[in-house]
């Protein structure tokens, strides 16, 4: 026999009252705790992806879309800009570094992004297997891409045009030029995990082919084989089969007359989806804005855009939080009412405890403990619910955005939530407990 046992028995004897208090509290705590977890992890993910990128240079359109597409890789790109135009910006002395990104096709649902070594280097990405891409049609896969597609170093795959991965029809969307997986990255906890990285040249080449091939593929049934391309046939052979080719970014550099010519042909019309820019000093923002003015390009600041996004999305969060707080208040009222009612019903038996040696303090502790037991059970249930909710949300996010949120650890803001919950729980129990403490036992016993 001890106080806990008595409190527990008292709660169990009124299962519906107890359940109501616990369910309300668990729901309130669950929603708040889920929001706190989401906020923390989304912010962390966002910040990690922004990592020192001061601007994104890309085609005019929604700046937020530009950021979402090129920093987080969750939205469609705004379009392309000409490399020749972009040079005016990125050669500016205010620019410390510019990382090129050229959106290519998809493999299954994974984006192929043409870039250079600076991109993985910016996120401190490390190769876990194989090596970093170096020549056209070599691909280095993000960890999740590798895990989900099952592609291994040495495997070949062909890309699909655009983003509509629903259409599996062979014609029109397939590009026949195979990519070779040369490496797989370690988990980086950034957008890189969900990307297929390849040199910019691969994207350009695929696109040039694409236009031509789509005509010919209708007519030429033998076309389906890798390497069988009309004009750049030998180049395909290089990448696909010539191992020497893989080294030193051999293609498009000196040597091959054909390539050289190709590069020249497209010099003026080569396009990039975006550049991730790091500035040299704080004045860069104004200077570069001037350069971009009156072009078809824009410079977007990821910090500003994400701030805007989280403000909008924060509004929804605030509403949810307000509702959750309201539910918590209701739950405290429910704790208070159920303690108060049970106190009224149990007045006589509480007085009896005094005749058997229990003190005022015993009664006070007993009632406080019943209130706190309710609150603690509610809190723990709520915390568990929030984890279940997070896992459910995470799988939803994973499907729709290739984003994973799965850190289930207790955050510091949850400790604050616990402290607040306990604090208010104490307040809700205090009045009934004080009434028990002040009870006149002689009067209570004679009036029974």
């Amino acid at each position, binding site marked *: *026999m*001890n106080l806990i*046992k*008595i409190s527990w*028995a*008292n709660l*169990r*004897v009124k299962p519906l009252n107890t359940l109501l208090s616990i369910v309300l509290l668990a729901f309130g705590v669950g929603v708040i705790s889920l929001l706190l977890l989401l906020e923390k992890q989304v912010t962390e993910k966002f910040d990690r992806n922004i990592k020192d990128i001061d601007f994104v240079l890309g085609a005019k359109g929604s700046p937020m879309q530009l950021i979402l597409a090129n920093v987080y890789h969750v939205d469609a790109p705004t379009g392309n800009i000409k490399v020749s135009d972009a040079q005016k910006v990125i050669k500016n002395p205010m620019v410390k570094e510019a990382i090129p990104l050229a959106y290519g096709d998809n493999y299954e649902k994974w984006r192929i992004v043409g870039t250079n070594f600076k991109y993985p280097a910016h996120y401190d990405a490390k190769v876990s297997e194989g090596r970093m891409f170096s020549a056209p049609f070599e691909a280095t896969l993000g960890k999740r891409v590798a895990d989900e597609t099952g592609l291994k170093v040495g495997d070949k795959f062909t890309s699909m045009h655009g983003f509509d991965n629903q259409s599996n029809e062979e014609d029109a969307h397939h590009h026949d030029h195979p990519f070779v997986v040369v490496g797989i990255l370690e988990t980086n906890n950034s957008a890189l995990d969900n990307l297929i990285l390849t040199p910019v040249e691969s994207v350009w080449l695929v696109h040039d082919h694409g236009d031509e091939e789509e005509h010919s593929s209708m007519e030429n049934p033998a076309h389906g084989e890798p390497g069988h391309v009309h004009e750049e046939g030998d180049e395909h052979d290089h990448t696909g089969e010539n191992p020497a080719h893989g080294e030193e970014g051999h293609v498009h550099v000196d040597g091959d007359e054909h390539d050289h010519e190709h590069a020249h042909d497209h010099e003026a019309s080569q396009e990039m989806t975006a550049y991730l820019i790091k500035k040299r000093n704080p004045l860069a923002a104004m200077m570069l804005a001037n350069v971009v003015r009156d072009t078809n390009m824009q410079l977007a600041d990821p910090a500003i855009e994400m701030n805007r996004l989280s403000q909008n999305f924060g509004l929804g969060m605030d509403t949810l939080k307000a509702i959750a707080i309201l539910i918590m208040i209701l739950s405290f009222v429910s704790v208070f009412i159920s303690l108060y009612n049970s106190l009224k019903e*149990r007045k*006589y*038996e509480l007085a*009896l*405890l*005094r*005749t*058997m*040696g*229990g*003190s*005022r*303090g*015993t009664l006070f502790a007993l009632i406080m403990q019943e209130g706190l037991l309710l609150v603690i059970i509610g809190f723990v249930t709520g915390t568990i619910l929030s984890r279940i909710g997070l896992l459910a949300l995470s799988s939803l996010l994973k499907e729709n955005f290739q984003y994973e949120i799965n850190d289930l650890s207790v955050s510091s803001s949850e400790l604050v939530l616990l402290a607040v919950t306990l604090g208010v729980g104490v307040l809700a129990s205090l009045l009934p407990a004080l009434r028990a403490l002040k009870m006149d*036992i*002689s009067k209570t*016993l*004679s009036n*029974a």
Partner: protein
Amino acid sequence: MLLAKNISFQYPSGPSFQFPTITCGKNEKLLILGESGKGKTTLLHLLAGLLQPTSGEIIINEQNTSTMSGAALDKFRGKNIGIIFQTAHFVEALNIEDNLIMPQYLTGLKQDRNKAKELLTRLNIADKGKKRPSQLSVGEAQRAAIARAVINNPPVILADEPTSALDDKNAAEVIRLLEEQANATGAALIIVTHDQRLKDHFANQITL
């Protein structure tokens, strides 16, 4: 064992009572009779330390309870006075056995489940130990209340109208059991009642 000297009690803006000196020694039994309104319950509450007398003093087990207060008095009461009320009340959420252990727990004594079972057997309700208080009949509940009152072997047992809610058969049985339990530990037994059926049972009587 119990001595109440010249005690009086004044309810705040209510009636006041003057009580005769009451004494009851080890192994003795005392019946206090009185009509309604004579302050029977007030007297019992005074003797039990649930009320403090306006004047006079109460000595129980050689200690003056009228000078004690707070948790010390509560603990003293739990250890030295077993109280039985007109209707038996229990902690409804706990079974009878757990209710019997309650005085041991509340006074910090060793919790002895066997003693509770033994008492229930002696009072002929051994099979009710695991039952909820609400499942017992009035007579059974009163017996369980006796068991709870004597489990700490108090030197003084106070009973407030222990038989008035019972029929003749049960009343006689409860009185027999009360005497038996008091004899078993040599406790002083004081019964406060208006129940005339008890008149002939006890030689020692005071009428208020």
